[in-house]
């Protein structure tokens, strides 16, 4: 999506496919290029030397990691011109790639982003309150994504709890450890691995030493042999 937009003073409300956000690129009198880019890393059309991509930013909180500055709403916008370098594509840190931050409006304010240098990111907030708010939002998004990842992991694990309950975080981690070891052992020792656990102790010398993972459940042990691992007092993995 790198088509140049029509020039002129009209505001082009082009919306980004993913988040229904339109961006504003604005060249103020201070001669720094202000660009608002969301994390879906839109690329400007760098081929057009008079890069006049125009879009508007509307009721959007910019993603973390970018400096931004409170700015009054814009009506017309134009960037570039011959001789002005095209606006850069922000390199993003790993974290910013992982989380697609929620785009939420804060009142009716428009937030713009100021690019000074990509290496020194200065945050200028209207107030300490705004900073804490966005820090809270970031943290909340981070935790939400982590909980989603936990849920996805739980879905891959065998069902080992009564239907209403789900595994706690520590339980799902331990169960994942146990299950991966189990799958690896099957791969290594073949499908007879399970039956070997049933047989006489002399056969177990070819198997890896059993470890008790500290997970106790009376449900859903069917995927593991009945002659289970001996319990370990220290509750190790």
């Amino acid at each position, binding site marked *: 999506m790198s088509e140049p937009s029509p020039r002129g003073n009209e505001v082009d409300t082009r919306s980004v496919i993913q988040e229904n956000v339109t961006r504003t690129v604005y060249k103020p009198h201070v001669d720094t290029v202000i660009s608002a880019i969301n994390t879906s890393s839109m690329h400007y059309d760098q081929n057009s030397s008079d890069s006049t991509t125009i879009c508007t930013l509307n009721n959007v909180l910019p993603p973390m990691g970018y400096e931004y500055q409170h700015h009054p709403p814009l009506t017309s916008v134009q960037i570039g011109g011959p001789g002005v370098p095209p606006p850069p594509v922000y390199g993003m840190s790993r974290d910013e790639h992982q989380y697609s931050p929620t785009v939420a409006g804060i009142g009716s304010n428009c937030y713009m982003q100021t690019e000074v240098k990509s290496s020194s990111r200065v945050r200028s907030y209207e107030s300490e309150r705004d900073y804490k708010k966005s820090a809270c939002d970031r943290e909340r998004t981070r935790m939400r994504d982590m909980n989603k990842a936990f849920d996805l*992991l739980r879905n*891959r*694990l065998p069902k080992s709890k009564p239907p209403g309950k789900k595994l706690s975080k*520590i339980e799902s*981690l331990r169960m994942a*450890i146990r299950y*991966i070891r189990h*799958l690896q052992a099957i791969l290594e020792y073949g499908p007879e691995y399970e039956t070997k656990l049933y047989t006489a102790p002399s056969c177990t010398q070819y198997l890896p030493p059993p470890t008790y993972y500290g997970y106790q459940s009376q449900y859903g042990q069917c995927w593991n042999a009945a002659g289970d691992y001996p319990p370990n007092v220290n509750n190790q*993995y």
Partner: protein
Amino acid sequence: MEFDNGSNDFQIQSNQLNEAPSKKRIRSGANARERDRTQSVNSAFDVLRAMIPIDPPDRKLSKIETLQLATKYISHLSQILTSGEDSEQEHSFYDVCIFCLTNKINS
């Protein structure tokens, strides 16, 4: 009449001093328990992290990365078990299983 405010104040202060230590004890007990709980979760993350094959092997995965990669690794192992070890087909030209790739790099 003279009020002996001095001793009253002292009484109030000493009551507050007597109550505070038990609340502090409760708080520090809860803090210690939460610390232990967090530590056990973190060490579970470490164990899980160690089981996931990755290239380069010394790269430390973040918590969310270990969760996501553990999920994918379990899918990968299940897929190998169900379809057989030699039939690690790629779904498309661009879609390579990261663990198949790591396996090829390491062997």
